[in-house]
């Protein structure tokens, strides 16, 4: 199970990474493994306002539908349109090619409150149930 250093994490298994003051968001290796084959990703339009801990989209595997939760508040400025035709990128490359949205954050303090890689690893081992 990959949990790269330098990223922040949520208990709902999203990751967030700062790139030039913006926050890139995706789901973790654990999340994609739990979901199985991802066959559909529904993402918001650029310009959509999102709130921390609110949902920003949906990811569907063959069997299940799961909500995607926003790590930080702000405005969506870019979405990964490659996922429309290649949702399997979420399985193959959850931290790179499988990224989902870029947010212009409205409150930079929120990012720092997210779980560190060590916190998230601890959470997976002790609380996430597998």
């Amino acid at each position, binding site marked *: 199970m990959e949990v790269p250093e330098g990223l922040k994490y949520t208990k709902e298994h999203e990751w967030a990474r700062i790139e030039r003051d913006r926050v890139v968001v995706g789901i973790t290796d654990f999340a994609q493994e739990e979901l*199985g*084959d991802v*066959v*559909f990703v*529904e993402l918001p339009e650029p310009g959509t306002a999102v709130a921390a801990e609110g949902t920003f989209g949906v990811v569907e595997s*063959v*069997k299940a*539908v799961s909500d995607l939760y926003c790590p930080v508040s702000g405005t969506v400025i870019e979405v990964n349109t490659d996922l429309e035709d290649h949702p399997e990128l979420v399985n193959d490359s959850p931290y790179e090619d499988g990224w989902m949205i870029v947010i212009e954050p409205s409150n930079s303090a929120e990012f720092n409150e997210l779980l560190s890689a060590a916190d998230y690893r601890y959470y997976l081992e002790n609380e996430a149930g597998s």
Partner: protein
Amino acid sequence: MTPDTGSKRTPLYDVHCQLHARIIPFGGWDMPVSYSGIIEEHLRVRSHAGLFDVSHMGEVEIHGPQAEAAVQYLTLNDVRDLQDFQLQYSALCNESGGLIDDITIGRLAADRFLLIINAGNIDKDVAWIEQHLPTGAEATNLSDDKALLALQGPAAETILQRLTTAALPTLGYYCATTARVAGVEVLISRLGYTGEDGFELMVDGQHAVALWQAMMEAGQPETILPVGLGARDTLRLEARYLLYGVDMDESNTPLEVGLNWLTKLDKGPFIGRDALIRAKAEGVRQRLVGFVLKDRGIARAHYRVMDGETPIGMVTSGTMSPSLEQAIGTAFVPRAYSKIGSEFAIEVRHHAVPAEVVRAPFVPRRVKRS
């Protein structure tokens, strides 16, 4: 050993764990939902072969001088059509014509019939059968003693033939034979739930592991994979087979779900017949149809079927078809919307996705034709 979940386990449970299967509760059982991934397993069954543990299914034998009369009275299809070692798809209904279960019946002898029933319905079906048996017929629940393995896919015959001297090329669709497979006594039936050619092998539980291992080894040249309930569900939906408890339950008649072809209203008395004759005369209000989505999205069970702002029905099964790479599903809709080519929308979260009724099955069935 009693598992914490209170769920039952098949004789192959440890084998599934060794194969790192993902285990889920299903119908009171701990069952493998997938091993290497649902899509890979699904496509392997379509292209080569897959092996399924379906030991959670129940088996009931009805025997005695009145066995045929008993089965004839309990079930919808006409068992007088069966010769020894022939099988048929059938169903149990209550007095109101509501479906208790869909089942497979095999005639083992003139006075011995085998009923294969759904895992989640074993207790209910056995109680119902015992309650309605005439004198001269007895029911024996074999469910705890028997394991059932399904070998499915275009390579199934080639693989199984390596392990048995039974003449598989001459074994017809919905026909059975007893045979030794890898040295184990089994009942081989040529049928399945995937739309591909294949076999189900019923065996005493104690031999299930040896039989499983032998078939996995024999299938190596054809790259056989173990297949879980996840792909079993997508395969059966593509082939447009019904799943009890999902596509139908006791609130549905067989006429609504497309099982009219096995409902032999003219065969003589059976439980539910009067109600079904009335239902047929009145005309069914709703039908289960197969649809494809014509825009992005996936329909799922319980999503609403819409005509504009009006809800007109409900999705029972829906998935992204691994073979077609298209969202497919089944839904109950009013008769007026049930013709091939009819259009409506499926409410997928906040938006309406256009859908069209298509001919069944979604993927052509390639079962054995004699």
